[in-house]
Each structure stands twice: as structure tokens, then as C-alpha cells.
């Protein structure tokens, strides 16, 4: 079972790939960083992130709206819940 910190690091790596244009911001992000307002995520980068998380963590997202994820911490919590 991955720790929360390990999930966060793995997620950061995915975010770098999902929206590499914001690499400096993502490298310095923390759990309170907001996906849309801080990182400028759009519908395609969010889709990219979800698919990459599913591939990397071996989990399947429910039909949640991406509005459910405000911050990176919210995504970490969701992955943590799915891995339990």
C-alpha cells in the first residue's frame, strides 16, 4: 500500500506529463495547489490526468465530475480511497 506522500509524488509525475506546459508550477506544487485556478487545467488536461492515473495506479474512476477535485490533495485522497 502506497503512503500518501508516495501517491502525491507519483501524481506529480503524472501531472507533469498531463500538462507539461506548467512544469515549473507543478514541480513546486503542494496538496493545496488548485488544478484549475493555479495550474490552468482544461478539460483535455483533466481527461489526460484521469486516464494516466488509472493506468499508473491500476484503479478505475467512478463517473465523478472533475468539479469534485478542487486541489491536488483532493485527487490524492480519491486515489488513496480507491487503493484501500
Amino acid at each position, binding site marked *: 500500500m502506497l503512503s500518501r506522500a508516495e501517491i502525491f509524488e507519483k501524481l506529480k509525475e503524472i501531472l507533469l506529463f498531463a500538462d507539461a*506546459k506548467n512544469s515549473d508550477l507543478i514541480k513546486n506544487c503542494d496538496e493545496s495547489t488548485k488544478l484549475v485556478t493555479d495550474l490552468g487545467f482544461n478539460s483535455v488536461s483533466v*481527461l489526460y490526468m484521469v*486516464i494516466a492515473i488509472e*493506468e499508473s495506479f491500476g484503479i478505475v474512476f467512478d463517473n465523478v465530475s472533475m468539479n469534485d477535485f478542487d486541489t491536488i490533495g483532493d485527487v490524492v485522497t480519491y486515489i488513496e480511497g480507491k487503493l484501500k
Partner: protein
Amino acid sequence: MQSPTKEIFKKYTDPEQFERIIDYDSVSEMWQASVTNDPDTVAIEDDGKRYTYAQIEADVSRLRTVIKSDEKALRVGIYCPNSYDFVRSFLAVTTLGYTAVILPAQLDAMTVFGCTMKYGLDMILYHPSLQENTAITAEKRPDVTLIASDTQGDTLTEMAFPSGDTPCVIMFTGGTTGKSKGALLSNAAVMQGTVNGCYGYRDVFHQRYLLILPLSHVFGLIRNLMTSLYTGSTLFICRNNKDMFRDIAVFRPTILVAVPALAEMALNLSKKFRKNMLGDSLKAIICGAAAVPPYLIKEYHKEFGIMLLPGYGLTESANLVSGNPEYLSKPESVGLLYPNQEYKIVDGELLLKGRNMMSGYVGEEEEGVYDEDGFFRTGDLVRVDDEGFLYITGRIKEIIVLPSGENISPAELEVKFLELSLIQDAQVYEDVTENGTHILALEVVPRMPEIARLGIENIGQHLTAALEKINNTLPTFQRVSRIIIRDSDFERTPSMKIKRYKKC
């Protein structure tokens, strides 16, 4: 000028299949031919169920009975998300010779009500999941019949065969001026748009299509759904785009219709996970609705041997105006004009007339929409090369007029800078310096995976030097005076297009 005849596309298609590409006057004629030719072929896969052409026609004929029981139903709103119900409703309405008004599933209750007024709807076929949003219409317009899209009639009603000029569908469009309008397309226009999707590649009939675009968009409705039904193919409806790769693994599509942003996402994911996420069966990606970067065309060919075919179209032209079968040798082009069109280029702007063109905007002033000869003004600036290939060089409303009087098309310049594979997006705009001088400026978003792959360290310095090199090849008046390398994406419109700066 007359567009080429279909013979120009002959060499790209299997000869036997090319002979089968024929023009129909109405959706009914096409649908009858598909049901007759391929009754037992699966036409639609949706939500775990498969529907053959014959089964769908039986199902559609029962829905025709329900629609026809309301004698006033001439304009019928279709308010369904991507689903089998959408397909069934669209076919039932159009094969009765009635007009389908496509209401995007994201419309709220007040907007749905507004559409009943603006477009004079007599009936709405709504998906049960959207029933709540018909409440205002039910209250304020009791004369509009509301029917759930899964309703079945007890008896069968045959299709009608309207003439080609009979209205078929009203689609929403931003128009060429950015204001939302309803473009009315005749049966002949829809059929020309449908058949245009058959030109320029080898295997046309009996393909496997995946639907990820909204059916409320002309690219989804005509190029994806209608061309699939025309060719006796199978269409798999992907209900949620996040599941598209799982759906691809199961369904194994041969053709994907996609916007460039999705095609690029699939490419990057494939590189990250070192496997072709689009599956080994995929032969072609039909790409449009936004400018297609030549980089994508080359990468798909190099990495997976997949044809990425760029095209150009408008809602007002029933989708496709041109498509590019010479995608490798002319990746910057949107291709050859499809048959049955007339065109002219006036001050660089493309004007169109032809079988595929809309009958007009519903309930809107027509001033400025057409020229004195009845040609539709596309608002797109183009050039055509010696072999008849079309290139989009900009949009009229984006033109920058410099104090010197020279006209600059930002898109034309951006294409030059985007030839650099290290650049993902670019925007050229007019700015004013502190001392009041008007200059051209360039902002770019780096393509980071490519930069990482090449191990480039000082990104700003490297990119600026590469961009300067391109800049110096341009005529003096087109050269940019300032280059900015961004570390975040541009602000975008809801349809993912870059929001253009207006600094002057």
C-alpha cells in the same frame, strides 16, 4: 471556380468501394439502402447492447408512429446525450421528412425553453435523464409535445422520401461572427456532407468507428454518425471520454474522428506508457474542428503507421468542405475541395456555394452572410496551391492592420512558428511598447515532452534562438519584435480554442 469532381479522389480508394460511393438526395434514401444492403450488420453499439441495421429500422419505425400521431410535429427538438436514443430519434424524425433541431445535452431548462420559441419547435424528444430540464417548457409551452426518447409505438410507420431541398436538421453554430445561430441544412446538404466523408482513403465501407465527439456538433453528427451509417459500418458510442481507451481495447476501432487536442493526448499517453493506446486495428484518424499541427501527422505516421487525415469544414457547410489525402507530403494543407461546390477567393477570403451549404440561419438577418452572387462568406482566409490543395491562412476578424497599412494574418505566421516541433501552441498579436510603437509580438507554449526527450536544458534560450531563426526568414513587415516563452497554457474558450489577445 468549380470544385473538382469526385474522380480526383479515385486513386486513394479501393476501386470496388469507390464505385459504391454514390449521392443520395435524402437521409431516407441513404438509410433504406443501408438497411437493405447490411440488415444483419451491427450498426450501433451502446451501453453494452448491439443493434443491427434491421433492428434499428424496426425500432425507428415504431418511434415514427409516435411522432406522426402528433400532426403538427414538423420541427422536432432532439435533446439527448450521445446514446442509441439520439440515433433512433434523429433517424425517426428525418426519415419522416421532418426537421430535427439538435439541442445539446448541456443546455439548461431555460435555454431549452428559449429554443422552443426561437426555432418554433412543435415537439421535443428528450432523453429520460434530461426530463427535469423540460419542466419550464412543459409549464410555459403546453402546445409543445414532450416525448421521452425511449417511447415505443404499437405499430410500424414507413419512412417518407422527401426531396433533397426539404429541411433536414438545424444545428447550432458560433457562425462566422461568434454569435450562436441555428444553421438549417437540407437533406441534400446532409447527404453531401455524409458522402464527403468517404473520399480520400482506401477502405471506406464496413469500418469500425468510435464516437467520442458530441452528436450535437456537426463533426460528430455527420462525419462520425452519418458516414458510419452510410458505409454499413459499426459505430461504438463511448459514453464517457475517460473510458475511451478501455472502449478502444474492447471494440478495436479502425477509424477515429477526433479534434487535434484529443489526438495529441492519445499520442502523449501512448509515449508515456510505451504502448499504442489507440489499438493495433486503428488505421485512420479523421482530424478537424481546429488547426491540425503537422507535427501530429508526422508523429502518428512514424510511431504507429496511422494516417492522420486533416480536413476543413463548417457547420454551415454540413461539415466537410475539404479533406487531405496527401497528408504526408502536404501536412499543412486541409486538402482538396470535395465535389459539388463552387468557390471563389475574394481578398483572400473563401466564399462557398453548393449542394452541401446551409439554406440559411433560422430567424436571423442575412445581411453580410452571402455575397451578391449568393456565395457564403466563410470568414476564413485561404490560399490554393497549383495542385488545388487548400491552406487556411487566418480568420478575417483576426487580421491585424499595422500602422503601415499592411495586413497581418496571425494564424499564417503562427503556422510558421508551429513548424518547430518544440512548440505546442503559438499566438501572434499586436502590442504597443512604452514609447507608443505598435509591434508584433509572439508568445509560445513549449512542447515539454519533446524538449525533455531531446534533453534541452536552457529552454528559453534554445527556443528563442530557434524562433528567431524562423523569424528572420519572414518578410520584414511580418517579423515579430518580441518573443515570450510561456510557462503555462493560454487561456482557452469552452471549445478549447485559444482566447486571442486584444491589446490594441
